[in-house]
């Protein structure tokens, strides 16, 4: 089973960074306001129906409408509005350009993740997993390759849509190292329900180490062992859609598999990543995630699936 990345306590109320935290405070305040007003209305209704005549006569005039229906809401709403606008302003402060930048592209039905260098060049390709340094704002450049998607990691921030033809920016920040679940929140057809990802926050040094490791692996890739899985992977045409650095596989349609072995999940955040699930995914992805763009390679015998999974599992 996939490790539970959310659930109880609800991630919206369990913030892991400053942007989500401010909204959590607001959420509790709104929740209290809602309870209070519902209570007032229910009590007023109760008294209006069952109350003693002297209270009823006080309730039964236009004055009550002015107080309860106009003055009271106007005060509450004004307070809320000012708070909301201030908070909106603080959450949408300009981007300095010095932040770590990661490009996330929504595709039917997975997330392409590209780490950008200081000049906006892609320094690392990955999928369905976003690694962030802790304690600093990270700017996500959100795009879409096809239809509208929406990027949401409730522990870290509110959501933002990924819109074809536009480039939207979202700042997130995690103050605690850990793993946080994310999903696509805008209905994007077919298996939209099964389009998730994981955000992983590391301490700054660990994060740099993680990046460096990926670079080292990429550089060392050609020297990797000539395993049978590699041959079968290439023979089966997987390279038409997938890229594995250092091999002839250079397809760009599907997720980059150069580091697939080190990912936490498969199928865009829906399966834990291990040898068995990898075999199962390659052999029968269509019953695990119906409608996804990868055909089931059910024609491959188990030993070939096993070999491919074995080789892919080592691509870290």
């Amino acid at each position, binding site marked *: *089973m996939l490790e*539970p990345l959310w*659930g109880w306590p*609800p*991630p*919206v*109320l369990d913030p892991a960074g400053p942007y*989500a935290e401010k*909204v959590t405070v*607001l*959420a509790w305040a*709104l929740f209290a*306001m*809602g309870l209070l*007003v*519902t209570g007032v*209305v229910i009590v007023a*209704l109760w008294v209006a*129906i069952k*109350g003693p005549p002297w*209270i*009823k006569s006080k*309730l*039964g005039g236009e004055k*009550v*409408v002015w*107080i*309860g*229906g*106009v003055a009271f*809401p106007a005060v509450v709403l004004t307070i*809320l509005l000012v708070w*909301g*606008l201030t908070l*909106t*302003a603080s959450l949408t402060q300009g981007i300095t350009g010095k932040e770590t930048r990661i490009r996330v592209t929504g595709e*039917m039905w997975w997330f392409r993740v590209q780490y950008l260098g200081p000049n906006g060049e892609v320094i690392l390709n990955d999928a369905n997993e976003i690694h962030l340094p802790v304690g600093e704002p990270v700017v996500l450049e959100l795009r879409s390759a096809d*239809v*509208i998607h929406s990027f*949401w990691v409730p522990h870290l*921030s509110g*959501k*933002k*849509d990924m*819109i074809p033809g*536009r480039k939207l920016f979202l700042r997130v920040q995690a103050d605690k190292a850990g793993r946080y*679940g994310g*999903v*696509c*929140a805008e*209905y994007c*057809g*077919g298996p*939209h*329900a*099964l389009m*998730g990802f994981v955000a992983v926050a590391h301490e700054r040094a660990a994060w740099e180490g993680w990046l460096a490791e990926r670079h080292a692996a990429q550089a060392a890739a050609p020297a990797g062992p000539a395993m049978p899985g590699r041959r079968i992977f290439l023979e089966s045409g997987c390279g038409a859609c997938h890229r594995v650095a250092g091999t002839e596989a250079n397809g760009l349609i599907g997720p980059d598999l150069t580091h697939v072995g080190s990912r936490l999940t498969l199928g865009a955040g*829906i399966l834990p990543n291990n040898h068995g699930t990898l075999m199962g995914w390659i052999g029968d992805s269509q019953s695990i995630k*119906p*409608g996804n763009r990868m055909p089931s390679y059910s024609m491959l015998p188990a030993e070939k699936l096993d070999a491919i999974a074995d080789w892919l599992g080592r691509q870290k």
Partner: protein
Amino acid sequence: MKSETGFDHALYDLFPVREPRPEGEVEELNRIWAAPRGWGLMTVVNNNYIGFFYVAAAFLFFLLAGILALGMRIQLAAPLQEFLPQGTYNQFFTMHGTIMMFLFAVPAVEAIGILLLPQMLAARDLPFPRLSAYAFWAYLVGGLFFFASLFVGLAPDGGWFMYPPLTSITYSPGINTDFWLLGIGFIEISAIAGAVEIIVGVLRTRAPGMTLDRMPMFAWAMLVFAVMIVIAFPSVILGTLLLEIERAFNWPFFDPTRGGDPLLWQHLFWFFGHPEVYIIFLPAAGLMSMMVATVARTPLVGYRLNVLALVATGFISFGVWAHHMFATDMPRVSAGYFSAASMAVSLPAGIQVFCWIATLASGKIRWSTPALFVVGSIVLFTMGGLTGVMLGMVPFNWQVHDTYFIVAHLHYVLLGGMVFPMFAAFYYWNGMTSRNPLSERLGKWVFWLMFTGLNVTFLPMHLTGFMGMPRRVYTYLPDRGLDVLNLTSTVGAFILAAGIALFLIDLARNFRFTTEHDAGNIYGGGTLEWLPTGLYSTRSIPLVRSREPLWDDPRMCEDVAEGRYFLPNSATGLRETIITSPVNAEPQYLQLMPGPSPFPVAAAIFTAFFFLSLTIQAYSFAVFSGIVATLCVLRWLWETDRPIHITEAEIGGGITIPIAITGPTSHGWWALNTMMAVIGMIALMGLFSHLYLYGIHPEVWIAPPGLAQTAGIAGVLALAFLSALASRRVLAGHDAGTFPGQGPWLLTVLGAGLLAGALYWDVTGWQAAGLSPAASGQGATVFALLAFQGCLVAVAIIMAGYLGYRSGRGLLTPPANVTLDVVVRFIGFASLQGAVISLLPRIFPGG
């Protein structure tokens, strides 16, 4: 009170008239208003029947969409279930939302209006009974076809707001999306028809003396409702047209690679979509205000505040649409504005809630099923409204947008704000259409099951949303804490369904449709719909002196039934009603009303065939159906403008008023104006789309054709306008009873021809300038505007031909003629609008 029309208010003192009426008048009314029997019932146009059919059809769609919801709840009862396959589930939630919003909620409130308004206003019928019949049949046939798409797996699956590019031809190549556009097309037709009917009905057919200040609250709500439809629906009409054009002809309105923008759809959709929520809610609030007064047995507290709240809601609701788009990264200022407006709209809602509470406090409640539903609705609507306030807070919205929190919010608002009042109304007004009252004992069970079911279903969903469950998911992963909450919601859905099933049992046992021997005023309401009625409504049309005339004048029922008020008989031997002035409801003239006819239903069926065959790409049958539908409409209009020999009629108390006049006082003039407002709004939204796309992708814009050509087009349109006016002049120059010659209709033909010429010049001019509709957002919007103008030109040509035919038959009677008046004003309008459509894109400096 100052007289509005010159009508002498002292004449009101004549009523109730004391002299007895001659025998046989009621029998004659019964004969005139008798409904056809057997299959002939299909041709019925009277509001008692059409209104009832309409409510029944809307309720049928409510049940069908409810069954879809149960299917979805079974699928979500546990994680990774396979009860509904993914594709089917996606069709289910799309159809559930679409049917509930478009085929149930809007038609249901409209239907209740058509059923109740004439009686509430003591009119004999609504002013355009055949239009109602047409709208109903088009809606029923179209809606059933639309629903049937589920059975062949072709139902739309893009969600009820159908965002492109998911719904564009690239990502939805099947005809599923076209079915959605088809279904929406019907509801657009019936909503607009209903709006015309209701605006004119409420403003012009009220009982004498029923000033705006004495109008039942439901009539106020329906007036605001209808005006909102006129403003809001054009936006979605345009949106659906653009999406269909993009799908069929590849014009890139929403394609960012060619200068379109997916967000244009969202603006067009939500400019309609959010007001639509209030379009649904306001009539229900109007019903609530009336029922609250009756169950508390006291007049509504804060009548004028309530009217103000209705109007204010209507206004503000047009400024909140983009709160559905906070996550699309709008500028901070816009977000602030839409946030503030979204909060402001809760003020009028608060006014209404407290008016109801104050009314309950000032009276003494008599518990009954409607009372339970009314009180339950106040609680539920308040809860839904509060989550709405929360959603207006931008940062909070970013978190819960598109999650189950939204699902919970919208169901509280819609069930609490519309469905519960509707059930209350079913019980409360059942006595008007059924021989027997519904069971009070079962009714209490119905209420408690529905109330419990609703809360058990939707209360947990707030939390499911907080826990990260997005909406529109056909399944969810285990071990995320969502299992128990979802199972609870499923159980709740079945409790809710049990309540509705029990209501159906109650209906089966007790509901017996009747137009004459109804169960009557069970709950003791004080408004005019509780007068004794037949198919002709009330025997005589009462003089209204207060807001609850039946409470204030205990003799009124008897006086009305004995014919002691206005129009105690049929003055002309035909169907007729009194048209009164819009503010003070002073009697102005007698309108003759059409009776049963097969042509509205035939026109509706062929309209349905027309759209359906377009959808399934049977183009030749589409052309055939289109022609038959047009001929049916013309045939039905043929009888509406008959020359009549009597020019005045006595309406009781010795008062005489004229019969069927033309000009600004006529109800037809008001109806055409409403239609022109709708057409003008569509054009306005089209121009907005044009400018919007320039703002997003100016790089694909090219220079417009030269100014000389533009001036020439404007000149031709001016000539079209003048020739239409000249036609009316020529007709007015002839005396009554003489033949006006061929001049008047030929001038309208000239006008229509000039319109066509200007359009041709316009289109070829842009083509010569190098603009192509498929190439860019500019091309797509310019040619879409011109295509829209083309539709107007086609209608103008048909109208001018029809006028010629009538002229040949000697029906073009000078000095004033309703048909000619309509044609002239339509051509005049088309030339003015054509000028705006043509000039703006040509003069706009963006080139």
